[in-house]
């Protein structure tokens, strides 16, 4: 009995070990090492391990007083505040439209879902071209409608419109993802509920707001999380389209209109080579992500049954 138990453990371990080895070395250990890095000053990309100077909590103290970091958190919040409602609205709209008996149903679904699997960097490059000032296609369309607001700076060069323009790219790219989830949930709602509502004289608007939207709540909450995570990880789209700019002048200091924390982290690490400081920043991101996950679990747990 003992021997077979040992054998069982051993075989199981052999099956897990390749996965576990990679997990420990590249996902587990980095989290701990990153914390250690955040307590050090590092100013090189070569041989990081041997070029550390211990500075205690200095990086976190600096971070606390770093106006640019505070700004980046604000911009991340702004990003999230735009992508969450827009993402939910666009996904839900597509799902409700598609949830009908249609010819070409799968053709439409493919069209909406395709952008989701494509490369964000490439999509960013194409949109930068579309958003160009003067002769960019979007500005030319608007000029034909006599809107000349975007002629000089385009959409990405204007501090007021840069962030919405960047977020719109991600919303249009990701709408198919949410749509698929909403469609699956919509198809799970029993038809009988609608039928009895109709008997009670409910119109389509009442059916939508009183039955459909409440029953889609779990998917909607999931979409909130997806949006917040997208804001925390926002980097590629910023790198491709705005590099954190255009600059805004507030009280004599220059800030970037799309300077989100993810981009600041990259800039600190890869451009200014302050690895310890970047690691400290990433711990703030982690703290936010954990809080969001905990809130999510709290809200979701008791109410998922339907």
């Amino acid at each position, binding site marked *: 009995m003992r021997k077979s138990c040992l054998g*069982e453990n051993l*075989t*199981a371990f052999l*099956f*897990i070990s*390749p*996965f*576990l080895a*990679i*997990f420990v070395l*590249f*996902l587990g*250990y*980095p*989290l701990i090492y*990153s914390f250690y*890095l955040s307590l050090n000053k590092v100013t090189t*990309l070569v*041989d*990081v*391990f041997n070029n550390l100077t211990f500075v205690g909590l200095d990086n976190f103290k600096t971070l606390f007083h770093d106006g640019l970091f505070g700004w980046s958190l604000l911009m991340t919040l702004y990003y999230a505040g735009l992508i969450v409602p827009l993402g939910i609205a666009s996904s839900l709209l*597509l799902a409700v*439209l598609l949830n*009908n008996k*249609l010819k070409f149903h799968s053709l*439409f679904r*493919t*069209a*909406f*879902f*395709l*952008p989701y699997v*494509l*490369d964000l*960097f*490439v999509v960013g490059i*194409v949109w930068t*071209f*579309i958003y*160009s000032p*003067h*002769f*960019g*296609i979007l500005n*030319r369309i608007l000029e034909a409608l006599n809107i000349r607001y975007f002629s000089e700076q385009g959409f990405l060069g204007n501090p007021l419109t840069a962030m919405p323009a960047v977020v719109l790219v991600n919303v249009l790219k990701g709408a198919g*993802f949410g749509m698929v*989830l909403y469609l699956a949930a919509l198809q799970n709602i029993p038809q009988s509920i609608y039928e009895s509502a109709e008997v009670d004289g409910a119109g389509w608007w009442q059916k939508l707001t009183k039955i459909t939207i409440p029953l889609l709540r779990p*998917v909607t909450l999931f979409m909130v999380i997806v949006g917040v995570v997208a804001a*925390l*990880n926002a*980097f*590629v789209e910023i790198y491709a389209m705005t590099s954190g700019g255009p600059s805004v002048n507030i009280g004599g200091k220059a800030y970037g209109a799309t300077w989100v924390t*993810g981009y600041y982290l990259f800039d600190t*690490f*890869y451009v200014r080579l302050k690895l310890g400081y970047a690691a400290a920043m*990433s*711990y703030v*991101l982690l703290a936010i992500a*954990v809080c969001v996950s905990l809130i*999510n679990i709290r809200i979701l747990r008791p109410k998922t049954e339907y």
Partner: protein
Amino acid sequence: MILLYVALTFAAFVVLFPFIWMIITAFKQPGTEFSSQILPSKPTLENFKRVFTEFGFVRYFLNSTIVAVSSGVLATLLASLAAYAFTFKNFVFKEKMYGLIIASMMVPGLMYVVPQFAIINKLGWMNTYRAMIVPHLANVFGLFLLRQYMGTIPKSLIDAAKMDGANDLQIYGRIVIPLSLPIVATLFLLTFQFHWSNFLWQLIVTNKENLYTVPVGLAMFKQQHEELYTLKMAASAVSIVPISLIFVFAQRYFIEGITRGAVKE
């Protein structure tokens, strides 16, 4: 009803517009990308030709293919082996270990970039395929998907095979994997897609042109030739062809993976 089709067609146009515009521009003569004509007056293949002959995109494609295929195969293999043990074996700390692994999904991806870079550096792996592939081989989401799926395989099947004297490796290879093929395919495709478009990581672990993947090559090209719009659009168009093709034929596997993944939340 007609209104519905109009709305759907309009929505599809909006969502696909960037790709339509990219392809149209890619066929325009260089220098005419901002002219007032919508369609190219003299369509040309020149841009595509130059992308492959004057710039290193053939090599970038080769690199992307090597990285995405080997990552896809290896990550799927590792996750399926681990999922087999988590589903069908009993061992110490099983659920604790699983919980810890799954909890790591909360961590924002950007968090890993700095320490992983330091480790790759320490291992002397800079500018190698290894650096691009190995750090992402423990696919936690994949482990979750596979364990969930393997849980639906009847235990009696496994027991019967054991009675016939099959060992774990045989059960894994001859029973569990064949029965899990749809989800294995899903995982392979999702990993392939992730690595084909992975940008930040491939950017920081390579600085030699012969190791650039497609997105990194595109970024460098964009930096050096900001004004060559028609070429940029041609290169962009070509870079999304593989994923688009795979997607059109294997769409249901992508959708399967995404809906299953969201259900857990």
